[in-house]
């Protein structure tokens, strides 16, 4: 498998089981320092399971393979330990937390990570959250508002690496643009790398992604330059992807070496 130097995240042949079902069947990918990588795939292809397993969510049991974060094997670490190392993921379905306002939790996260007030205000501005700040977290929020809130709170953790799980699903074009700007601002503000799970790649227009992987049926079926893969998927869907990009593996490796 080709991969990059200065790997922030390195996932090797990962297999994940939920209940009795094998949902990820030997997936490998890597993300280098400073890199944004996209992960495409149809519904139920195992993308979220892969993300949650990398995060350390206990419902997603790792049945094979290893995960390295900055070269350290984190496969057996708890979710709390992984988050402490600076690895986290946004959730696709963000829960409501009644009784706690967005402002309260944002202040708690910002205080814990000693985040400068200007950055907090800037993210509120980018994601247009001011009107939501004194409402209870996600209670009565639209889908787009929830996605923006999730990215906002994640940004306040000052993580080193984030897996963004479908930040553009069910979101209007204006919100996609805001989310793209927010992610790029995070990259300027200390985020070392990101893996963005997406169905459509709409977000790709607003961020500088270098590479993309495509996942189907629990496996990574191809990888390549983000723009080429995104264009191909928008034109032909996922099925032709494997055929087109597998054949160009040498070229892709060369391109990715440059990116890395």
């Amino acid at each position, binding site marked *: 498998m080709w991969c990059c130097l200065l790997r922030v995240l390195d996932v090797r042949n990962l297999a994940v089981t939920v209940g009795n079902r094998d949902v990820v069947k030997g997936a490998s990918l890597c993300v280098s320092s400073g890199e944004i990588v996209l992960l495409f795939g149809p519904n139920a292809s195992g993308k979220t399971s892969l993300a949650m397993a990398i995060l350390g969510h206990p419902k997603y049991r790792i049945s094979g393979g290893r995960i390295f974060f900055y070269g350290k094997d984190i496969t057996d670490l708890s979710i*709390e330990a992984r988050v402490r190392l600076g690895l986290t993921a946004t*959730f696709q379905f963000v*829960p409501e937390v009644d009784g706690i306002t967005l402002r309260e*939790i944002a202040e*708690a996260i910002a205080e814990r990570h000693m985040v400068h007030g200007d950055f907090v205000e800037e993210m509120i501005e980018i994601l247009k959250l001011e009107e939501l700040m004194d409402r209870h977290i996600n209670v009565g929020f639209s889908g787009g508002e929830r996605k923006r809130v999730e990215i906002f*709170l994640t940004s306040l953790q000052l993580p080193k690496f984030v897996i963004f799980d479908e930040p553009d699903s069910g979101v209007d074009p204006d919100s996609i643009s805001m989310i793209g700007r927010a992610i790029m601002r995070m990259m300027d503000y200390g985020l070392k790398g990101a893996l963005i799970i997406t169905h459509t790649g709409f977000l790709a227009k607003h961020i500088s992604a270098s590479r993309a992987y495509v996942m189907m049926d629990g496996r990574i079926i191809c990888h390549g330059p983000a723009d080429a893969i995104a264009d191909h998927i928008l034109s032909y869907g996922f099925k032709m992807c494997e055929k087109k990009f597998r054949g160009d593996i040498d070229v892709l490796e060369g391109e990715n070496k440059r990116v890395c």
Partner: protein
Amino acid sequence: MDIGAFHTKKPESIDIESLGEELALIGIDIEERERSGSYYQIEGEVLRALSMHPGLEILDLETALDKYGDLLREHYWKAVPVDMDKFTALAELRGSGGYFVRVKRGHKVQLPIQACLLMSMGGSLQAPHNIIIAEEDSEVSIVTGCMTMKEQVGLHAGVTEIYVGRGARVNFVMIHRWSRAMHIRPRTGVIVDEDGVFVSHYIAFTELRTLQMMPRVILGPNSRAFLSSIIVLDGGAEADVGYYLELLGNGSSGQIISRSIVKDTSRVVARARIVGRGRGTKGHIDCRGLLLSNGSRILTIPILDAPSRDIRLTHEAAVGRLEEDKILWLIARGFGREEAESLLIRGFMNVGLPELPGVLTAMIDRTLRIITKSML
């Protein structure tokens, strides 16, 4: 319960100053910095009844009865019937102490009054009779803090009658912190006149033995009530608590919000009953319970009684555990598991108190933070 086993006792000499931190937890500021009046009672003995506001009168009830005679007798045992049960009878026959608060017509008293009722003796009975009268267009907030100062068997059976005058507003906060052998039987009745507002917030966090209470609130025309309770029990405590709200006047409305959190083998029966009488009345019950241990139990009993078509009464109820998905989401957002649980419990206890003075909100917030810590 054998009420004959409990007796009014003379209190031990107590250094109130040394109890500052503990009293702060039940809303009592011994320095009286942001208070407009204070009342202290230990066992049956009244230590202090002081008003610091010209529109406010605070007396012990005995003095008030002497002073106002028949005028006060009109209110005496009117909101709570003396023959309601054996505990009201006990308060009448063997009780002593209790405060009288009168807010004069048109006076808006910004800072809260504090009433502190302490128990210190084993086998003790504390059965004060309190009367609060908020005259027309007046406004007042009262925080009543009750606690035992050491492990002891005892019975607290205080009676509180509250009269909210036309266009007046009373915010009544009661915080209880008892020890594990205590039996608690408060009896409260509230009559709210036309356009009046009554806000009640009851917090009990304790290892008490038994607690039973169901304050009865009767609303006049176009008046409103917000009745909330937070019951946080551990050990082997048993509680049967709730509110009875009668929407008597046309256009009156009210909510009953209850939050119960139980741990160990403690049990709560959370009751709420709203009866619509007047035309165009509205009422809502929101009753939720959180189980923190396998041996604990919560039973919710909401009752709505709407005898005519233009009365709108609704309820919602839920009992369960902390949701693991929410805990994991908060962990992903950088909180430790215990902090995540603590945040969720804090959120659970937020009943959205309407428009209380800031000093009261801050005090309640502080107390709830400490309760949350103690439950984890």
